[in-house]
């Protein structure tokens, strides 16, 4: 039994009841619209931010404040220094109990300059690494810690340069960014140039999954055992189906014995007057 699910259903039930019985608010539910913000993002922007999975233990109604923030993506082509290559925009949502989470991530890439294009072509030739980094603490990006990720440059080119970001966050901290091509990357990596020198980016924000609680199901086991006894009892077999293997040989023996007895009786009748002859007769047979 998923506890979070039951909790949610309980909550909704409670809400239903309370709304039915007492004060009815006509306020638009604020959070619901937030949930689907990601899907409503303009098709023009290259980024897709799927709805962030909310921690099940967080109270939905406790969201109080959200503000927008920006942080930059920096890249390094080969051994060059890191330079700004794009900007992430996200909303920072503060919960009443103090936690903050990032939602609604959007990404805009800067256009590729000619020098960068040249460098990238070098990378493709050398099968070298294209490295990106973003600050690990997005609230104060001045911090020294960056999460870094690299990919072999030859994995990126398709039509354009397809890139795929998976940003693992824990509240406001970025743990790691998985950067790579949108699809697979075959090996050995052939040299090919993109037809269009621009990035098409996909971004995904990921939070930690909650492990399900270890089931303590002493009662369930008992219940299941009962169920086993009741439900899964094998259908009653007929008497014949159960015991045919015993009945058949016994029947054989009986028939045999009866035949013998009948035989013996017949012989007895034949040689009725000479009982002294009987024993050798039997022996001979």
């Amino acid at each position, binding site marked *: 039994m998923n506890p979070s699910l039951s909790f949610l259903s309980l909550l909704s039930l409670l809400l239903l009841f309370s709304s039915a019985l007492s004060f009815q608010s006509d306020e638009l539910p604020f959070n619901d619209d937030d949930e689907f913000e990601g899907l409503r993002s303009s098709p023009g922007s290259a980024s897709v931010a799927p709805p962030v999975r909310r921690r099940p233990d967080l109270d939905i109604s406790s969201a109080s404040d959200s503000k927008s923030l920006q942080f930059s993506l920096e890249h390094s082509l080969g051994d060059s220094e890191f330079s700004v290559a794009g900007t992430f925009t996200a909303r920072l949502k503060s919960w009443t109990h103090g936690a903050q989470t990032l939602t609604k991530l959007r990404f805009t890439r800067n256009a590729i300059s000619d020098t960068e294009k040249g460098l990238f072509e070098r990378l493709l030739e050398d099968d070298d690494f294209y490295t990106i980094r973003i600050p690990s603490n997005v609230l104060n990006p001045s911090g020294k810690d960056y999460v870094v990720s*690299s990919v072999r440059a030859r994995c990126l080119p398709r039509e354009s340069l397809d890139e795929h970001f998976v940003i693992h966050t824990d509240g406001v901290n970025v743990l790691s960014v998985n950067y790579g091509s949108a699809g697979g990357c075959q090996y050995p990596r052939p040299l090919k140039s993109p037809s269009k020198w621009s990035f098409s980016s996909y971004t995904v924000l990921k939070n930690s999954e909650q*492990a399900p*609680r*270890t089931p303590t199901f002493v009662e369930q*086991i008992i219940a299941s055992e009962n169920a086993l006894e009741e439900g899964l009892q094998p259908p009653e077999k007929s008497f014949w189906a159960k015991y045919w293997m015993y009945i058949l040989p016994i029947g054989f023996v009986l028939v045999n014995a009866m035949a013998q007895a009948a035989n013996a009786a017949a012989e007895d009748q034949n040689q009725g007057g000479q009982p002294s002859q009987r024993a050798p007769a039997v022996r001979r047979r």
Partner: protein
Amino acid sequence: MEARFLLGFLLLLSLSSFAFAIYEDQVGLADWHKRYIGKVKHAVFHTQKTGRRRVVVSTEENAIASLDLRTGDILWRHVLGKNDAVDQIGLSLGKYVLTLSSQGSVLRAWNLPDGQMVWETDLQISNPSNSFLHVLGNVKSGRDSLSLVCNGGSIRAVSSIDGLVVWKKDLSIDGLKLKHVFQPPESDTIYAIGFIDSSLIALYHINAKTGELLKHATQASSVDLSSEISAISSDSLVALDTSRSNLLLIKFMAGTITNHKLPLSDIVQDFSGLAELIPTKSNDIFVVKTPSNVAFIKVKGDNEIELIGKADEAGIVSDSLTLSEEEQAFAVVHHSNNAISLQVRINGREALTEGIKIEDHRGHVKRVFLNNYVRTDKSHGFRALIVMEDESLLLMQQGEVVWSREDGLASISDAVVAELPVEKEGGVSVVEVEHTLLEWLKGHMLKLKGTLMLSTPDDMAAIQAMHLKSTERNKMTRDHNGFRKLIIVLTRSGKVYALHTGDGRIVWAHLLTPLLQSESCPSPSVLTLRNWRVPHRKALQENPSILLVGRCGAGPESHGFLFIVDSYSGKVLETQILDHSIAEVVPLPLADSSEQKLHLVIDDKLNAHLYPRGSDALEVFVREMANMYYYKVENAKEVIKGYAFKKGCSTGSSAYCFGTRELWSVVFPSDSERIVATARRKINEVVHTQAKIMTNQDVMYKYITKNILFVATVSPKAAGGIGSAAPDDAWLVAYLIDTVTGRILHRVTHQGAQGPVHAVVSENWVVYHYFNLRAHRYEMTVIEIYDQSRADNKDVMKLVLGKHNLTAPITSYSRPEIATKSQSYFFTHSVKAIAVTTTARGITSKQILIGTIGDQVLALDKRYLDPRRTANPSQEEKEEGIIPLTDTLPIIPQSYVTHTRQVGDLRGIMSFPANLESTTHVFSYGIDLFYTRIAPSRTYDSLTDEFSYVLLLITVVVLIVAILVTWAMSQKKDLQEKWR
């Protein structure tokens, strides 16, 4: 009728091999268990006229043991907990061993003959510091004797009979540290002397029966006092000042204290450096050890002292041994090359000098304990217990080593496995002829009796002894099944031992660090060992060798060194002091033309140095360099970083030195996560199949990669012990990270869970163990990872036509589509170590080897940790062997690999494959060593040793006889039929 009987018998026979555990009489057939005690730090001799002569020792592994002085065997042993270090041991009442441990807060009494604990007293000391134990010899309150435990400024008197605190005196003076307690004979007053803030000397008179403070006095000292003192008589002691070059003679007569400063240079000529005071007991003599010599000094009259003896070379000096009122003996031990000279000095005069040759693999003498005995001619004889650099223990008497113990093996830090030599054809006689015909006959009679179940217990014992002696097991050659191997272990002291898997005997042992000791390498210490050359294809005839890597100094920036050692003989083949430091050694899955394995040594500046040095090694490496990655877990910074290698390094221009460049990093937020455990797959693990067939005939592909790293982090609040954090403040996050790209493949949070975390990664799964605060129980979780990108390779037609992507090379740069399955279970025990069985080809099902809190090794079937378990498995699932889900993992008593044995202070479990697929070797180590062979799926590929060939033979014979008899009968019957 007869046939049915036989059938039943055969059935029984086949059933017997399905038994899971081993039988009582199989103990010791494949396993061995060795007990050690560790490096001795205290020793108390018990050599009274009656009873066994024994020595009670405490060790740095927190063990207390009683050893037989004649043989060195352990009479009894107790291993205290990890945080329960023994401070002091003493004897009381002639029958109890007292141990003061945990920085003076726990006092225990053990019964001397059998080691039973008699009592234990928690002294409830608020600020544990250096404390000492003083057993009052002659004060008797009733028939009891008291033991005094002094800790800082407080004294506790503990009854030796029942451990009750008789009285307690807190002198409650800040900075007071009691140094010495004594009681003059026939007196009820205890004198306690201490220093206050290293400038005041304080003397207290205390009533021995009540603890009442009778008198006290303080006196300013003329020098800054260090903590080293030596009590030289009933009214005086000698202290060393903080500069370690002046002595202070302190006298306390009739309640007053006088002190007198004596520069050491006045007493000992050409004194320089730092002196050391050897603790003594009385008799106006004390011993000062200086870097160049050992001086025996006598105090005469008022403030006059005299040098009465000197041992020139700096040696190791024992504590003083009181022979009589007048006589004090010391042992001074010198070590040169491979000889020890033991010098016993009575009152500073040389009384006895003995020299002994010892094996040169033992290093220098570290400690010596002296004991005396009465010789047959009524004179004093001496024996000395010597602790060597390799932590072995020797008993010397009459110029001979009476016994020696290899107690270095109690502190194994690393281990690898090596093969034994191949049996030479014609060289070694293969079959050893049995000694005499009679013996041979006897043996076979016994065996026959055993198989026919006619043997008496005595016979059984004899059979078992025969089994144990069987040479087949202990031969020094490689066998077909791969049962005989060498386990090469590295101990804390830097000694390397090769142990035979047959009986655990030491084949060779070497202490290598003294070979290196020089100016360029002041304090060498070995860090790790690796297989350097494994017999394989081309190098089949070459001896395998191992690589030992170490550091010349303590810091991480000190230069490294490496040794290459022959596995068969322990001979050093190559020694090299490196010009760079050593942070990590990375074995590569490559080898050069002479089958030497390639290793990368990463230094503290993150340069990679390739070994072995050789053009072909370089060529092999450079060819594969683009596909090599390295990762580093920086525990202090909560960061994991990944690197690629590039040509040219930052420190030099050597062709074998490569630079690194950072490719990825994972930064854990330091305010919410702390790395507590990491685990990865064994580099040489073999996976038999990449597909797993589900009950519904569906195929799941395992996500198998060697580059998977399991990381567990906990919240900082929960980083302490269990109970330090509330369930709401504790969480544990488990990560699976690809070490090539830094991709987080899977991440899951366990709320209300905390460490300690133990994890093992194998094939496509990880199993980890942690504590669940909400359920108040330990838990184990399994995560299995499946590759979804290959999931559509189910079509048999596709497979036949070759239209599948199973043989395509896999690159980590492709975004993996993985699916994880996970399940958690409660587990009763806390865990000390965790490992998994490995077999030669990976076909045999796996068992998880768990080192339990009881120092045993439990083999838990992986089937219990299968995420597909459900509470009500369907018929098909049952047929497949899926066990119904329970919330707790079962602990089956028969599945303890260690059966009745305990591996004291278990620290590691190692599993390595035999050539026989069904069998795996298990070696677990702590203070003790335990080795056995296990077959997780039973020995399906060979007949077991206990297979009854006789019974098989009898069966065959009986069958033939039966056939003959029935044939004859039928012949006869036919004949009769025809005559009718």
